[in-house]
């Protein structure tokens, strides 16, 4: 069953990331061009996802929106992962006040409501892609921090670390060359589920009007705009959401499958 997750996750990720890559270079119609189809027309063979209230081709719009969301989610998760690991590794590796203080900082960040944090940040920095990346990075940071802190606390007492120290390795070398590779498995799993969560957050922020700005399509904003029309033309809301859901599902399954492969005891996922 676990390998099923890995296979299915890989297939879905390949399909959605492939679709997103395709969306950067080619879409069947111009996603911004109105009246390529009859206004509010239902899905058909020529327009598989139908058309919106301006007669724009929804399939092209979804394809064009996917790389934007994916890019924001990947960069945000990478940012949070990088600084989270640095923070967690430092707080787990060094004893005393520094370690304790950084540990408390991680706990402090965890008790901040994530959407509210993002909302405040985006207002301070102004709406746009950069702010959303930063916000996603910030609320992912403590999860990576907590995880790497725990791994470092556990691993630094192991014999191979003692041996490295006895051979004269400095703290930086011990952290990066000896401990980090051993802590990478759980971090990788956390990374994929964080990425899935980041995709949902990006869409939520765009839905609130704080993310990617018009005229560029984004899945979250497509749903926001569809809010007035979806009762009459449900496809304007159904397909952008479905595309998002399949992408998130792919990354969650991949994370699950990887987790089972790397450590059968590990079952870690983000709380919604």
């Amino acid at each position, binding site marked *: 069953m676990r390998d099923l997750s890995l296979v299915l996750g890989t297939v879905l990720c390949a399909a959605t990331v492939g679709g997103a890559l395709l969306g950067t270079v080619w879409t069947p119609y111009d996603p911004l061009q109105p009246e390529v189809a009859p206004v509010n027309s239902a899905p058909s063979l020529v327009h598989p996802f139908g058309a919106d209230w301006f007669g724009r081709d929804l399939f092209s719009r979804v394809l064009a929106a996917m790389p934007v969301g994916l890019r924001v989610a990947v960069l945000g998760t990478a940012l949070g992962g990088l600084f989270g690991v640095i923070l967690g590794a430092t707080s787990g590796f060094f004893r005393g006040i520094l370690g304790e203080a950084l540990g408390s900082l991680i*706990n402090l960040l965890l008790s*901040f409501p994530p959407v509210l944090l993002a909302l405040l940040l985006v207002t301070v920095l102004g709406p746009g892609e950069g702010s959303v990346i930063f916000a996603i990075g910030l609320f992912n940071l403590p999860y990576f921090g907590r995880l790497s802190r725990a791994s470092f606390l556990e691993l630094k007492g192991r014999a191979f670390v003692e041996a490295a120290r006895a051979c004269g390795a400095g703290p930086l070398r011990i952290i990066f060359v000896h401990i980090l590779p051993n802590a990478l498995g759980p971090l990788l799993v956390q990374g994929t589920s964080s990425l899935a969560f980041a995709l949902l957050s990006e869409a939520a922020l765009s839905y609130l009007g704080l993310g990617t700005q018009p005229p560029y399509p984004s899945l979250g904003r497509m*749903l926001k705009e569809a809010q007035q029309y979806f009762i009459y033309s449900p496809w304007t809301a159904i397909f952008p*959401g479905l595309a998002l*859901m*399949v992408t*998130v599902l792919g990354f969650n399954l991949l994370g699950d499958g990887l987790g089972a492969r790397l450590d059968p005891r590990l079952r870690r996922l983000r709380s919604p």
Partner: protein
Amino acid sequence: MGSYLLRRSIWFALTLLAISFVVFISLNVLPGDPARLVVGLEASPVLYAKVRAELGLDRPWPLRYLDWLGGVLRGDLGRSLHYRRPVGELLGDALSVSFPLALLAFSLSLLIALPLGALAARRRGGLLDVTLMGLAQAGLAVPEFWLGFVLILAFSVGLRSLPAGWFPGWEAGLSALKYLVLPALALAVPRGAYLARMVRGALLSTLGEAYVSAARAKGLSEAKVVWVHALRPALIPVVTSGGIIFGRLLAGTIVVENIFYLPGLGRLALVSVLARDIPLVQGVVLVAAGSILAMSFLADLSYGLLDPRVHYR
């Protein structure tokens, strides 16, 4: 136990203090002038200055922070610049929607999670387990605002059985509860799916323990072994996550409240931030962070009840 409670309470207060301070500072570097937003662009300089003084914006920000803090300690959260009403009142009104919504959504998630998680654990590796966990994966991936749309299409447009949005207020009596069902369901599906996976995982680990075999050997029925003996300690990780989930639900569900036009804490948060209403933002953040902290505190305290082997140090 006593010193544990004391330490946790001090940590609680310090965290809230730190959060309110960070929020205050970040709002002060915000572009946008609250006084200008209140009087408008055309107002005379005299009126502008008067409003600025009235709002206390002419004083340096450290003093304003201390004023605010003093007020909070006396139970006064200040006045909202945008609504021109006491922040405490606004928060109370919002909570009268957000609290029942959070409670309903959380109960529904548990109602999904406990039976499905336990069933999957008992049929480990079987077809039912694979199906249930596949469904849980799908539930976990659903964007809750999109689920809101789908629920409106199904129950409000299709079946015409439940309202699609808006809230009449509790003056309407219990029938107002109808307006919370769809939003609560949209919130409950991803959270229930998450908790179901957790229940299954935790049960699988306790089902292998010696005392469970002992209970079986005693001749207890399988249902009693699972629901009474194995489930109780297995609930610890579930309660931890449940505490965080419930706290965050209480802190306001900005997106779902927006879809269903509910006047809860999430909407208040969005309005206050967009209007640069500093006292209101501070109040919202205090309630939101406070409920998250309080819930995880309560979750920690419940460990001792669930598993007699737990000791607080």
